[in-house]
């Protein structure tokens, strides 16, 4: 579920970068980057079965 949310947020950030205002695009970029790193760190502590 978190990956669907990340892709949705990323697509919105891209749309804002292309059609919206620059400050809002920068804010969304920072939010998606932080959420990606957070997701990575959350899963980085999982038991390593294959790719996590």
């Amino acid at each position, binding site marked *: *579920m978190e*990956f669907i949310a990340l892709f949705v947020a*990323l697509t919105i950030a*891209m749309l804002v970068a292309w059609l919206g205002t620059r400050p809002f695009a920068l804010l969304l*970029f920072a939010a998606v*980057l932080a959420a*990606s790193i957070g997701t*990575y760190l959350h*899963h980085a502590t999982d038991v390593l079965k294959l790719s*996590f």
Partner: protein
Amino acid sequence: MTRPLAVTLNALGLYAIAFVLAAAFAAQLALHELPCPLCMLQRIQFAMLAIGPMLNIRYGPRSSHYALSLLAAVVGAAFSMRQVLLHITPGDPGYGSAILGYHYYTWAFLGFSSAIVLLALMLLFDRQFETHDVREQNRPGAFARVAAWLVIGLAALNIVSTALECGFGACADNPVEYELLKLQR
């Protein structure tokens, strides 16, 4: 490097990102290899690379826009290196198929590393940053518009693909089938 040339190179960068995202989809559909969670994080970082060039095309080249792409590339390189290290022990077959001898995550690491170098090279050319009204917005040409919408479209397709693959629960560590399609059977 003049501003128009820098803008054209940024549009070319968007096509390169679109190529990577499309190639990932092609491998997913042709080889029926679903992306693992760490693979999806790398796709996200590849798409994040596109936000800097989009802003450069719309508002003119600025070092802060290149910085966004550099951040995405460094984070993407860290994610892909993590996956390389997970499969580095002798005898480990790796995750997914190898293309030209390297697995997707190794190619991803090379891609992010190349992006870092290319972004640094772009930052070497000061003339593109010559003073202009920052409130001024460029009217992108058809070449850049197609590139931007291609990348946005591919990012949107990833929403559909991820929803099909993971359904409404957590994504599988080693996905082998689309959860949503399984529910319909």
